């Protein structure tokens, strides 16, 4: 019966008026409850159909991505990291986690021996993502007894801001328990909406991000040159109401570059504590180590989060503020292994 009204006002004003009148007469003959029931029935069927269509499109896009895109997808390193964590073999005893600099040095798939596993990714997944990765690794192989976690100090400033988190974190960590945990912690309704969207239709949302990458006008999204600014609180009343109801923890001031400020932001603090507890529960030793830093970079470890001071490197070796030029990676890796006394044989780490 929804054909009587049409929105094409300029040309169809008369037709609309006639149809509207006819429809009103038709509806006037029926009781209101019947109309409401009819509307609810139509709305339900439409929504159900929409859900099926969305799920089908999502599945189809997922198939397409699987067969064609590969490395072009946003956050492929996160995808590989999760896969590596999911396929831990019983022989693995040591796990390396970390951000994109750690990813350069200890790239998944280049492990020197079967009892070491690299599940390094990037900082855009925040400490929450790092924790979930480690949790996955332990779930698949509880016999891991040492965890090395390499992180640029400034990356602790990542408190899941909207710009990176929707693609990198929500895009890959959207199990329902993860969605709920992050909401309980941050009460960031936009983040939760993105999270739920990724949970319901991960491939469709990934496709959307691929289409709209230009809107970020920054090609190297995962480059953690400076800590990421906190997201502004959502000023919209409906969503902010949720924040008020749940008593959102206020975000701290933006930390200076090269440090995470006087105290860790909520997400980093919560998940680092959980990571320590997780390791303790599995009787594993957690080493939190800073990635090598340029000699120009400021370093501040106000709460002694790291086990030791960072190795300093010549800025000439870097392609940006933190990442290494490809020709120096092997050399830096050898120095890092020696500097931090890592139980790795650098010469056995394979090229990829």
């Amino acid at each position, binding site marked *: 019966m929804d*054909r009587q*009204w049409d929105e094409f006002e*300029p040309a169809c004003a008369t037709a609309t008026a006639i149809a509207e009148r006819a429809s009103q007469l038709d509806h006037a003959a029926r009781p209101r409850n019947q109309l409401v029931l009819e509307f609810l029935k139509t709305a339900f069927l439409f929504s159900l159909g929409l859900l099926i269509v969305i799920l089908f499109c999502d599945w189809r896009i997922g198939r397409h991505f699987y067969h064609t895109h590969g490395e072009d997808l946003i956050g492929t390193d996160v995808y590989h990291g999760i896969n590596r964590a999911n396929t831990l073999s019983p022989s693995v005893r040591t796990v390396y986690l970390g951000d994109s600099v750690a990813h350069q040095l200890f790239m998944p798939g280049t492990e020197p021996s079967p009892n070491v596993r690299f599940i390094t990714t990037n900082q855009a997944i925040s400490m929450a993502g790092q924790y979930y990765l480690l949790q996955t690794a332990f779930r698949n192989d509880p016999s891991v007894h040492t965890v090395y976690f390499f992180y640029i100090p400034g990356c602790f400033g990542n408190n899941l801001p909207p710009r990176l988190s929707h693609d990198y974190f929500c895009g890959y960590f959207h199990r329902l328990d993860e969605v709920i945990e992050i909401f309980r912690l941050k009460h960031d309704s936009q983040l939760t909406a993105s999270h739920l969207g990724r949970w319901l239709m991960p491939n469709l949302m990934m496709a959307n991000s691929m289409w709209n990458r230009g809107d970020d006008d920054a090609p190297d999204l995962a480059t953690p040159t400076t800590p990421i600014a906190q997201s502004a609180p959502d000023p919209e009343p409906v969503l902010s109401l949720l924040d008020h109801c749940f008593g959102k923890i206020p975000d701290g001031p933006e930390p200076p570059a090269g440090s995470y400020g006087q105290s860790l932001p909520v997400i980093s603090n919560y998940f680092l504590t959980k990571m320590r507890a997780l390791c303790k529960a599995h009787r594993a030793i957690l080493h939190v180590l800073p990635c090598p830093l340029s000699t120009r970079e400021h370093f501040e470890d106000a709460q002694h989060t790291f086990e030791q001071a960072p190795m300093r490197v010549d800025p000439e070796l870097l392609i940006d503020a933190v990442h290494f030029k490809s020709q120096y990676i092997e050399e830096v890796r050898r120095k890092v292994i020696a500097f931090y006394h890592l139980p790795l044989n650098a010469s056995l780490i394979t090229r990829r």
Partner: protein
Amino acid sequence: MLFNSLSFLIFFPITTAIYFCLPHRARWAWLLLCSAAFYLAFIPKYLLILLLVIAIDYVAGLVIESAKGGWRRAFLIISLVANIGLLALFKYFDFLNANVHALSAFLHWNYPVHNLGWLLPIGLSFHTFQSMAYTIEVFLGRQRAERHPGYYALYVLFYPQLVAGPIERPQNLLPQFRQQHTFHPDRIYSGLRLMLWGMFKKVVIADRIAVIVDAIYGHPQAWGCAWLVIATYGFAIQIYCDFSGYTDIAIGAARVLGIRLMTNFDRPYAARSVAEFWRRWHISLSTWFRDYLYIPLGGNRVGPIRWAINIMIVFVVSGLWHGASWTFVIWGALHGAYILLSRWTRTIRQKLWDATGLGQFQFVTNAWQIFITFNLVAFAWIFFRAQSFASAKWIAGHLVRSPILMHPNYAVNALPPFDRFDLIVMGGIVLILEIIQWARTKPQLSQSFFAQPKWIRWPAYYALIVTILWIGNLGSRSFIYFQF
């Protein structure tokens, strides 16, 4: 609260459901409350300014109606001065001040007044004009003064059209608040369809084109003329889809509630002259200027020179209404100049058509006129969109002069909207938009579509929704006209 935000997606169904559950006598209060909440989402303290405008014009309406003789005009002038004064204070003070500063510096005078630096309340130009329409109509005796302060407040605050119109007339809107709107599924479906279509135009077309336009207009010197032309045409499409998308959502949302808002767009780029363009573009504003400025100035019932002056006054004021900047003034003046030139060259152009013999082919004449009008309008948009007069001048001067395909490497290599495939897809979507827009003008076509069974119609709606989710820019970009 933006129409394309998650908040609105939650806000709208909840408030609408409650609206229909309430008895008729309480609905105005509920709508008023919702409208206030909607406006509070932007900058809460500016609701006080809106309330001031409402209070001034509510009282002005009553006193104008009850006054006699010269007092009526006096009260109208007081009301208009108050409204325009508020607008001037927030919108034009800094612009005028900066110009006086520049003039003083040129003349070596000491001018110590500083800019206010106040943020313009969202949609101030829209609701001030709507409020002024009410007092003028009361003064002209075409509208009775509204006694009920709630209904009057709702006339100004009604949330679907609060921040960017359509600028309603009291005769259309006020009586509708008193009518009892029954729950009417067909009307709700129709409103929701229109909202979906508006959302598609905004999120899929306008916001995606915006990425290209922003990149090029942000640094026009870095781009070749082909890109400048693409961005200029792109902006013409962007602003149409942005503003008409907003209007569709506004009209659709109001329709769901049972309120019929006036039409604001009628395929403006199908206009065959600039004058016709203004009968199709932002109709609620152009008719406002026609009724309350152009006709009182004498309209076209005056001599040719006075008529030309009237036209220029209307279009320069229209430009200033959009923004306090010389680029908007030039944009308005350009449109005025187009109309004057069009009138003055009408005979010569007709002779040319007759001499070539092409005048007898209606299709050729129409296509040529539409093409020329679109290009004239798109050229004027350069001044509307450019960040400064210098930037606009540079773009206008280099549309055919700079190296054709010059572009900064970072953009074309890194940004997907500049990818050839993406540009082709966008072109395809714009073509589909045009076809649908054309189909919308054909009652038989649209009626035959709505006569189809659900299994044919629903997939079309699903396709729109999936396209929004797939390629739409879901980052809640603001609407262009919100800044006015």
